[in-house]
């Protein structure tokens, strides 16, 4: 049974906050194939299309038949732990701060021997299940856990470094006035978040969802308007050093394209909220979150953006909206690179049309806000980097990967 993680104590004001350090990040191009699999939560290894041999570590030539036709295929995540060690010495500053550190060699059911980060409860000679996760440097690593989940497994300190478990962490939900904002507040509360800050813009516009949130425990509703630089700056000054998971769920959906609805003001508002809003949040909250990337077991870990799946491909019915989402998505990659210096990871959820006022005319299937929020928080717990939510989002991303020209044309109908 994994030792239970004790809840964080109040911060000792005379204790220096450790500066963030990163695990080694020098990876080959081939190894980033693993990162792509980890980002989407898959356990896939290179498999030879000709002889079916599974390869690890990643490479460009099959070590069995010398074919270069290696494709990433989902494979069994089972294996047997053959050897283990617990490091009490490391050559790397990141691990030195976190010793002891447990490692193992697992022989995978599909063949290769894999060096893994090892969960506390794994026993040599016994079965384990592996997963591809992303470490604090933003790169894929393999971890192994007991075959059957053990008690308090998510409290394992080593594994907690690879995940964004909200348990005992403080969350800022940027927009508490939407259906999804309410769903996220509930989902984070269920996940054991220690405190949930919820932003409220334009307080004169009453939202039933925010009123619902107001009734919850451990919730602080704070003034936050992402279109207002002062507002973002003021809130960051007030709670920036308490935010361990940022949830940017800014949402401003108006239908219309370019010719069919030529209106710079609408486009401006979308960009203000989705794009410039992200800039303001990043500029004000980013530095302190990045600086707290190694602040103990409960330091800042993740920046979640809730984007539309139309960030991937423009839906002409929501033309400028899609563009503003694409702009924000691009910006998130910049944010990912910059926050990586502190080990804080950027996670993007991509959602299809959600059941709300602004999607009245969107054809089903539409996402139920609460279930959507639960799935987003579940993916955060697993440490997934790109989270498509729902059939529409999954299909868009799949079709974009397969043939972007096809979906570009087909999406209009």
């Amino acid at each position, binding site marked *: 049974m994994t030792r239970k993680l004790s809840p964080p104590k109040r911060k000792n004001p005379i204790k220096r906050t450790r500066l963030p350090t990163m695990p080694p*990040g020098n990876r080959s191009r081939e190894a980033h194939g693993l990162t792509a699999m980890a980002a989407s939560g898959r356990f896939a290894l290179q498999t030879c299309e000709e002889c079916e041999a599974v390869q690890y570590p990643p490479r460009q030539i099959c070590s069995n038949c010398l074919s270069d036709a290696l494709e990433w295929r989902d494979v069994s995540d089972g294996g047997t732990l*053959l*050897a283990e060690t*617990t*490091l*009490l010495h490391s*050559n790397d500053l990141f691990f030195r701060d976190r010793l002891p550190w447990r490692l193992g*060699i697992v022989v995978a059911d599909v063949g290769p021997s894999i060096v893994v980060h090892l969960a506390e409860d794994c026993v040599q*000679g016994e079965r384990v299940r592996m997963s591809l996760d992303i470490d604090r440097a933003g790169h894929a690593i393999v971890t192994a856990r007991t075959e059957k989940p053990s008690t308090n497994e998510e409290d394992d300190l080593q594994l907690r470094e690879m995940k964004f478990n909200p348990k005992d962490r403080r969350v800022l939900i940027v927009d508490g006035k939407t259906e999804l904002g309410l769903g996220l507040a509930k989902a984070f509360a269920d996940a054991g978040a220690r405190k949930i800050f919820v932003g409220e813009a334009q307080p004169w516009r009453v939202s039933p969802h925010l009123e619902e949130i107001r009734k919850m425990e451990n919730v602080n509703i704070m003034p936050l308007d992402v279109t207002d630089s002062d507002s973002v700056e003021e809130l960051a000054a007030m709670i920036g050093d308490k935010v361990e998971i940022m949830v940017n769920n800014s949402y401003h959906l108006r239908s219309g394209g370019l010719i069919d609805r030529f209106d710079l003001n609408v486009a401006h508002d979308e960009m203000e909220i989705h794009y410039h809003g992200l800039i303001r949040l990043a500029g004000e909250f980013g530095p302190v979150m990045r600086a707290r990337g190694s602040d103990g077991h409960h330091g800042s870990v993740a920046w979640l953006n809730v984007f539309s799946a139309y960030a991937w491909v423009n839906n002409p019915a929501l033309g400028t909206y899609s563009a503003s989402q694409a702009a924000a998505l691009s910006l998130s990659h910049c944010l990912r690179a910059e926050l990586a210096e502190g080990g804080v990871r950027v996670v993007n959820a991509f959602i299809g049309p959600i059941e709300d006022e602004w999607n009245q005319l969107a054809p089903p299937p539409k996402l139920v806000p609460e279930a959507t929020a639960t799935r987003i928080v579940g993916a955060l717990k697993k440490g997934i980097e790109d989270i498509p939510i729902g059939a529409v989002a999954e299909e868009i991303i799949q079709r974009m990967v397969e043939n972007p020209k096809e979906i570009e044309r087909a999406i209009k109908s």
Partner: protein
Amino acid sequence: MRRHNYEGVAVCVPVTVPYSRYSLKSAHWFCGRALADLISKAGIEKNEVDGFCVSSFTLNPDSAVGLTQHLGVSPRWLDHIPMGGAAGGVALRRAARAVQSGDAEIVACMGADTNHVDTFRQTIATFSQFANDAVYPYGSGGPNSSFAFLTDYYMREYGATREDFGKICIAQRENALDVPHAMMKRPLNMEQYLNARIIAEPLRLFDCVMPCAGAEAFLVMSIERAKSLDLDYATILSTIERHNAFPEDPVQIRAGWAVDADDFYEHAGIGPEDIDVFQAYDDYPIICFMQIEDLGFCAKGEAAAFIADRNLTTQGDFPYNTSGGQLSAGQAGAGGGYLGIVETLRQLTDQTLGKAVPNAVHGLASCFGMINYDRGLCTSAAILKRSAA
């Protein structure tokens, strides 16, 4: 086809550039001092050395090529052997064939490395693509964690204990006490060994080699030339090398020697029972066990029992790592891959730095290197024979 023998080839002039924990000098300096020492002891001019075999981790961005200009030599035969701990045995067999065929007359073989304060970390942080991708990001323990795996697996598989490994480390320390440049200068007892601080379980401090700066070198030439220079020399009975042996073993429990041992002894015309002095590659004691087994001194899994009733010191019945090995002398980078050959040569030509093994005629030096991912890939070994015998 039968392998050719090494008739007519002499190995001579064992040279060690004294080790230091850290050095401000470059690898070029260590190579240069080794060459200066070689020619001075051989009584030859620099330009008489027409072949070079170089191994180093810290010559970067140079290789053996840059070294020729640096040292002002114009060899007609040049090899750079990036095989770390296995390089010495490989250098020996290549140089021997070059001399035997007449492609070169005198080949200087050297393993040399410097050790600046951060050299070791930088070396292991960029050791290989597989290590960068699939090992170093896992705790960054370097070789400690890799050998911890092998040790853990071996112990569980064959029931070996820490005391068994301790016996090797303690005997080597005793041998090292007579070697002036050895890093470790104090005796080691079992209690100290067992209670040392943990590095990577089950490995503790005295299981782990200490990186340092230094060089090991020797010359290969014809017997005629060695005689004309009035040099003591040894001859070569056999050599082997092997890379990536037993890839199907899920964890390394044997290495290339096990593939080649039969051929090795047959080629040499002697068996393991004829070996008077044995130098095993020893960055961690587990690998010594594997060599004792894979080179046929005992069956697989029985190394612990084999050493239990044997004395491994210079004066014992199984003289082993007679200069203290790397575990006591220090690991001078790629120099560690030449240490076994050089020490064997010292024992067979009466040029030891520490105590001599009485009446040693046949010496076996075994080399191991390059943890590319989860295991060491390169093995080599050589049997040398005292020339006067």
